[in-house]
């Protein structure tokens, strides 16, 4: 298996979640996008919605993000949102 993704979810005033994950599904303005390890560098604008993260131990983290963007670079994924909170 490829190296896991290093994920951090940050909102304007704090870091909401950080850790390693195998898969991320986010909703961009164009539609849903799934990101696995080895994804090409990407910069996408997020639509208001859920970002679902599957962590390396198989559990799921769901974050509600608004007004933000997603960047993928070298297996480092950053979800940056003005407002973000963990739903589950």
């Amino acid at each position: 298996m490829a190296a896991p993704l290093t994920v951090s979810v940050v909102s304007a005033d704090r870091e909401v979640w950080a850790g390693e994950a195998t898969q991320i599904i986010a909703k961009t303005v164009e539609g849903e996008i799934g990101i696995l390890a080895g994804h090409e560098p990407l910069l996408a604008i997020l639509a208001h919605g859920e970002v679902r993260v599957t962590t390396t131990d198989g559990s799921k983290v769901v974050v509600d993000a608004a007004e933000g963007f997603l960047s993928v670079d070298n297996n480092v994924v950053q979800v940056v949102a003005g407002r973000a909170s963990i739903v589950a």
Partner: protein
Amino acid sequence: MGAQLRVYRQKIKSAQTTKKITRAMELIAASRIQKAQARVQASTPYARAITRAVSAVASHSNVDHLLTTEPEKVERAAVLIFSSDRGLAGAFNSNVLREAEQLSELLRNEGKDVVYYLVGRKAQGYFTFRHRPAERIWTGGTDQPLFETAKEIGETLLEAFARDASEGGVDEIHVVYNHFVSMMTQSPRVVRLLPLELVEGVEEPPVPGARIEPLYEFEPDAETVLDRLLPVYVESRIFNAMLQSAASKHAATQKAMKSASDNADTLIRDYTRLANNARQSEITQQISEIVGGADALAN
């Protein structure tokens, strides 16, 4: 009790009461600095992520954006001043206001009109006292700035920036705030917010071993991404200035209140000495009166 003695005792009492208050304020400020600093820390990942993203877009596309282009002629400049809602913070507010005055003078000498946007009740007071107009004022909540306020300020400024100077818009925006250097030092800082100076990857010969910036895929496209990113970047800069200013304010209050408590201590000591003197001379006088009286009766 002699009149003199009573006056001194009163002064000691009042200095003691004042000291209790300043001491309490010092402790409150000290605990708030920690919190304010933690908030500055907590907002850093966001600021860093945005800065990285912006420089990524900027270095990968030759998109000209309204917010990054230098206007040909600057007619009106906006100055955004971050002060505090409360005083008792030493030179905190006067520093930032003085810096703003110097900046305005500089801008006026360059032939620009200056309009003001104010944050904090102290700046508001300074302007109303001098009957000077301000375009927009935000008060309340400078101690614990909210991101919503930063967003609102950002939106107002971006809207003014987008308008033409002839229609009441501005061509450039400067920010004056207190930068938190350390617990002991806070220095006023002037930053030009707009037009943005992007730290672009200048065409340099590639350094061996340096990481080559990846080619990004943009969704939907580079222009739209930049269009959305830049306002967010501006807001995050404003939010950072607000947090810095809040932390500086608490540090300045703590310092000011500490020296006030120390001064009260000195006052109490001096007045206690004077009071002791007064008491002693009163006793001496009474004794000599008694002795004198006894002598007079004996003869």
